């Protein structure tokens, strides 16, 4: 077993353990913090895959923005956070069953695929994945249209979120 494989296994165990804590912890603030550690594990997986830019974006966007947004939302809805009732449904066993079936089905289906045990080819010397990614995002015969549509989607989501979460009673205090 090579060093890279041992590192992968450690990162995978860390990521999966944190993910299990995210879905089982009672306290939602702790769940959000476990989500941060899961996202760090995923960023490390990206770094192992030589996707440097994606790893940095994962840390900046997921951990820096989305996880913080979750912590804000948990604190704004704090009253129900640690209530006496159970945190999971009474038919949670069905969820376990469906998840295990999905996992088993995915692995069974992938095992039939010929590229399943393929190892990665060496990266060519001087390979510049960030430059290629930037060119692909703005080149007219690659992905410039989805890129611009994504920006419009973000704008629409921004306006929609402000509209939905706007509190008319608190917002009109200056009128």
């Amino acid at each position, binding site marked *: 077993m090579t060093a890279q494989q041992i590192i992968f296994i450690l990162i995978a165990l860390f990521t999966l353990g944190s993910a299990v804590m995210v879905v089982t912890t009672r306290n939602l603030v702790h769940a959000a913090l476990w989500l941060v550690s899961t996202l760090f594990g995923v960023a490390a997986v990206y770094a192992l895959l030589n996707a440097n830019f994606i790893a940095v974006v994962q840390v900046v966007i997921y951990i820096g923005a*989305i996880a913080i947004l979750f912590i804000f939302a948990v604190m704004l809805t704090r009253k129900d956070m640690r209530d006496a009732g159970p945190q999971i449904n009474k038919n949670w066993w069905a969820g376990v069953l469906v998840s295990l079936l999905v996992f088993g089905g995915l692995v069974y289906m992938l095992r039939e695929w010929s590229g399943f045990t393929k190892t990665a080819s060496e990266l060519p010397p001087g390979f510049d994945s960030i430059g290629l990614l930037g060119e692909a995002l703005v080149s007219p015969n690659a992905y410039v249209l989805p890129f611009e549509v994504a920006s419009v989607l973000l704008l629409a989501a921004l306006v929609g979120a402000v509209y939905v979460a706007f509190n008319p009673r608190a917002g009109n205090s200056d009128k």
Partner: protein
Amino acid sequence: MVPHSWYLILAAALFSVGMFGVLARRNAVAILLGVELMLNAVNINLVSFWRYSDVFSMSGQVFSIIVFAVTAAEVSVGLALVISMYRRRNTVIANDVDMLKF
């Protein structure tokens, strides 16, 4: 080198854990946390397929960037809905939001 199967199995396991969170948790914010886990699993798959096939075709990385943007939109709108629901109905339990049920 790590075989491709390890990444795919890690992504499948992460997806299943997130799916359990979505199906079993009662709190709406916790359901969104499960959705985050599922989206991350998909992203691991996209980036690993980029790495294990032609590295000069950037489709996998571009797709994962688009997934990042869509996730940010989804989380902002979803959490705004949860906060609005908390303000109007004073609950974040998904079972209690049944105005459309008859």
